[in-house]
C-alpha cells in the first residue's frame, strides 16, 4: 500500500543521511557496554535507517536491499547469538552467562572476557531489535501482506 513517490530531494537527502545513521547505530551498539547506549538503542537506530529507505523509496526497493528472509534470519540469529554466548560459558564449565569463563578460549583475562561477553550479547540484542523493528513496521504498513507486490 506504499505508493511510489518520485521526489528527488527526499531521495538525495536519504541517500546522504542513511550511511551516517547506520554508522551512528553501530557506534551506539559498539560502545553500549561502557557508556550510555547499547543493543536496544543501537538496534532501533539501525532499524530507523531501513525504515527511512522504506519511506523514501518504496517496498520493493527496500526489500531488494534487505530481503524478508534475511530479516527473519537476523531476528532469530540475534537471539541465538545472545543465547549461544551464554551457552559457551555453560560448556566451558561456568554457569549460564558467566562470561568470565570465556577467558579459556579468548586470549584475555577473566575481566576482559566479561567485557567481550557483554559485547557479544549487545551485538545479538542489536541485531534482533533491528530485525524485529523492521518486521513490525513491514507487517503494519502492509497489513501482513508484504509477500505480495505493492499496489501501484
Amino acid at each position, binding site marked *: 500500500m506504499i505508493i511510489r513517490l518520485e521526489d528527488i530531494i527526499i531521495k538525495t537527502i536519504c541517500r546522504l543521511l542513511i550511511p551516517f545513521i547506520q554508522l551512528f547505530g553501530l557506534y551506539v551498539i559498539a*560502545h553500549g557496554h561502557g557508556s*550510555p547506549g547499547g543493543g*536496544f538503542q543501537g538496534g532501533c537506530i539501525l532499524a530507523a535507517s531501513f525504515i527511512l529507505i522504506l519511506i523514501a523509496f518504496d517496498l520493493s526497493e527496500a526489500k531488494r536491499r534487505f530481503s524478508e528472509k534475511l530479516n527473519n534470519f537476523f531476528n532469530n540469529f540475534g537471539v541465538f547469538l545472545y543465547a549461544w554466548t551464554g551457552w559457551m560459558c555453560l560448556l566451558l564449565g561456568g554457569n549460564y552467562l558467566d562470561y568470565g569463563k570465556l577467558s579459556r578460549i579468548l586470549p584475555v583475562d577473566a575481566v576482559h572476557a566479561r567485557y567481550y561477553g557483554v559485547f557479544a550479547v549487545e551485538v545479538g540484542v542489536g541485531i534482533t531489535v533491528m530485525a524485529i523493528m523492521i518486521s*513490525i513496521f513491514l*507487517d*503494519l504498513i502492509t497489513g*501482513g501482506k508484504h509477500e505480495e507486490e505493492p499496489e501501484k
Partner: protein
Amino acid sequence: MIEYIIAKYNYWVYIVLMMIGFYAMIGKRNLVKKLLGMNIFQWAIILYYVSTASKKGGATIPIVMGAHGHYEPAQAIQYLNPLPHCLMLTAIVVGVSTTGVALALIIMIHRRYKTLEEDEILESLEAFKK
C-alpha cells in the same frame, strides 16, 4: 495540601496517567482507543519507575568516569540509580511487543469484520452464530 501534592508530584502524575489509561481500557468501545489506553497505562508505570531512580543535587548518568582508557568509579552521589532504568528497558521492550501483538490482532479483526467498534463486531459475531 498543595505542598503535599507538589512534594510528591511524580506519583500524582503517574497516578493520573494510569487512571486515564485505565478509563480508556475499560470505558471505550473502540479497539484502537483501548490499545492507546493500554499504552498510556504501561508508560505511566515506566514513568513511575524511572522517577524513583532520580536523586537530588545534579546526579547524572555515568557510573564509570572516562569510559575509554582509564576507569575510575564515580561516587554514589554522582549517578542516578541505574537499576530502575535497566528494568524499564526490559519493560519498554515488553510494552512494544504487546503493542505489536495487539496491533496485529486489530488488523486481523478489521480484515474479518470491517469495523473496529466492539459493539458492531459482537453483533456480527451473533449474526454469524444464527
